[in-house]
């Protein structure tokens, strides 16, 4: 279980509070107006941003002071998820060993996850030779290989067209179902949330609200969500 215990971030005029828990295996969408703090929330959980108050717990472990790479977390950013000077196989291999000294067995593992995301044989290419959808798949392959129990997606598919984005979301849903991982996914599109999320965290007015079941939320949206949806 991911527990945010009185989590707070304040800087100047901006502030964000979160105080809720997400059960293991849940698929949660984080939605809300831009600038509201959706990315801030994810960055605090990932350890990229230090909270000004409160704690992040995974199961019963306090993650405070744990560097991002050591947390039980994989995160995909909006962009720059791959190193452009490394090949696809190297980018994925980083998920196994940050120094890339891979054994033969580990190289086979890389091939296997690439095949799982339909990129068999693409290992030798550089990201510049891939399409936007393929780049997302490489990042997802690395996530699979890292096998962390908590996945954070900070709108990594925002730049893709609608059809491709749906395809990626479906792939994410499949991978999460296979691995039993917990998913927190930022989106500004309610359709994305409806597509794969069981519950939704609404971030607005400086508060990340506790997750509410997706169908119930959109059936009877609170005022803040109505304003956002327009």
């Amino acid at each position, binding site marked *: 279980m991911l527990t945010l215990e009185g989590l707070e971030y304040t800087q100047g005029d901006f502030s964000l509070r979160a105080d809720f828990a997400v059960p293991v295996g849940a698929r949660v969408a984080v939605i809300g107006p831009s600038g509201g703090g959706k990315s801030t929330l994810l960055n605090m959980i990932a350890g990229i941003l230090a909270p000004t108050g409160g704690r992040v717990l995974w199961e019963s472990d306090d993650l405070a002071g744990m560097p991002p790479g050591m947390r039980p977390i994989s995160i995909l950013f909006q962009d720059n998820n791959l*190193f452009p000077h490394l090949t696809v196989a190297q980018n994925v291999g980083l998920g196994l060993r940050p120094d890339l000294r891979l054994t033969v067995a580990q190289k086979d593992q890389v091939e296997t996850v690439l095949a799982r995301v339909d990129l068999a044989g693409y290992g030798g290419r550089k990201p510049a030779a891939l399409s936007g959808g393929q780049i997302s798949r490489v990042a997802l392959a690395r996530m699979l290989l890292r096998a962390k129990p908590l996945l954070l997606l900070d709108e990594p598919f925002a730049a893709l067209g609608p059809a491709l984005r749906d395809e990626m979301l479906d792939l994410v849903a499949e991978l999460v179902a296979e691995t039993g991982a917990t998913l927190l996914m930022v989106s500004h599109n309610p359709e994305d949330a409806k597509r794969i999320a069981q519950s939704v965290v609404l971030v607005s007015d400086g508060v990340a609200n506790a997750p509410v079941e997706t169908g119930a939320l959109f059936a009877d949206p609170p005022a803040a969500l109505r304003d956002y949806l327009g």
Partner: protein
Amino acid sequence: MANRAFKITPVIGAGAGAILLLLALILGPLWALLWRAEGPATLGVADWAAVRFTVLQATLSAGLSVGLAVPVARALARRQFIGRGVLITLLGAPFILPVIVAVMGLLAVFGRGGIISAMLGWIGLPPIHIYGLHGVVLAHVFFNLPLATRLILQGWLMIPSERFRLAASLGIAGRDVGRILERPMLRDVLPGAVMVVFLICLTSFAVALALGGGPKATTVELAIYQAFRFDFDLGRAALLAMVQFGMGAVAAMVMLWVAVPPTMGSGLDRTVERLDAPVAWWDGILLAVISLFLVTPLLMILFDGVPNLFSLPSSVYLAAGRSLGVALMSTLIAVVLALILALMVVRLRRGAVLVESIGYLVLAASPLVIGAGLFIALFPILDPVALALPLTALVNALMSLPFALRTLVPAVRDIEASYGQLADSLSLTGWARMRLVSLPRLRRPLGFSAGLAAALSMGDLGVIALFSDPESATLPLQMYRLMSAYRMDQAAGAAVLLLGMSLMLFWIFDRGGRANADA
């Protein structure tokens, strides 16, 4: 990341070590000179004359360079013509041009036997005399007018073209555009440009050695050289060194206070879209004159030197080999130091100020003072002749450090901003991060920095003059000797060799950084 907990990482440790090394190299020599000095020394009349001359020539050089650079930059900013790109590239060239080569070229144009004197002779006028204050200032303007032009052009191109469009739509034209848009920009840019040129001319040695001299035209650097080499008066050398350092420190302090525009920026290929542009016929003439001023001396060198290139005495080729070795060693030291410092500085919160301070401290420090001091400190334990080349390489590396830092720091910062979080999230730390992220992504700026360091060291005529021993002369020194012995044909041949080697070194390193570099 500002929020990351501060830890003493290997990078911070290495960086602190590098800074201590720098401070030791800059301040240690002063102390060594003082320690070795016998009895209290005083500065004579000639020494004070050197101080006055140094400040005078630096002021004149800075004023003339920047004053001329304003109209040149304006012409380049508002005119689009064939060859504009070439001209702007050419303006970057004097930076890696060996000083002694340029001096020789200037002599071929402005010297007693040069083109201009010959033309004056046709109409019965006496030849011009280049040695002395005006020669020194002329050479400094030759080097720094292009630099100042690039700095100011940068300022012009930083005014968004929308502003000019807005001004035109409001019917603001002619002089008023200058008052509203250009003058504020110049107010921001000019003080920095003046100070950069002033500081460069303040520590000028090779130009003063070749074109100055005599009691009337000696810079403090030249006086240090003479006190050390001819009189071996260490006390006076130490005092002069402190005067030099003091002048440099004051100038550097002023520079930290006025903002200096970025030197190595790209994107100068744009023109300012001027809807109000009056047809300024003098722009073309000005640019033509400036191009002639910059190109003719180099053409003269090629003209005189190429025929002699393959009939040079073997001492010249040996010197070229030594110079190459020194340049490569110096490049390695400069790039490693700069990389360590850049990596550290980006991790520190107030790193930017630190970099600027280091840069200006080094610019203000005199290479001759450092060289002489290190020599004094080390010669009881080591053989001075054996020291000459390694010391030259080390001092040359220090001198190119500010430029390497200015290139590397923004690049490292950029990498951290784009890929720092990704690397963090994958536990890419330490050497793996360096090997897999930093170094591959820094190839271009590293190549450029290495090219600059190699070319600057190749062409340097400074510290090595202190130890000028026939067995350890570098190519610039050997060339200077040929000039002093009036073997002008051979000197011109050596000049072409030196010029070619400097440009080749820059090209090879810069090219190496670009080849196969992924965006």
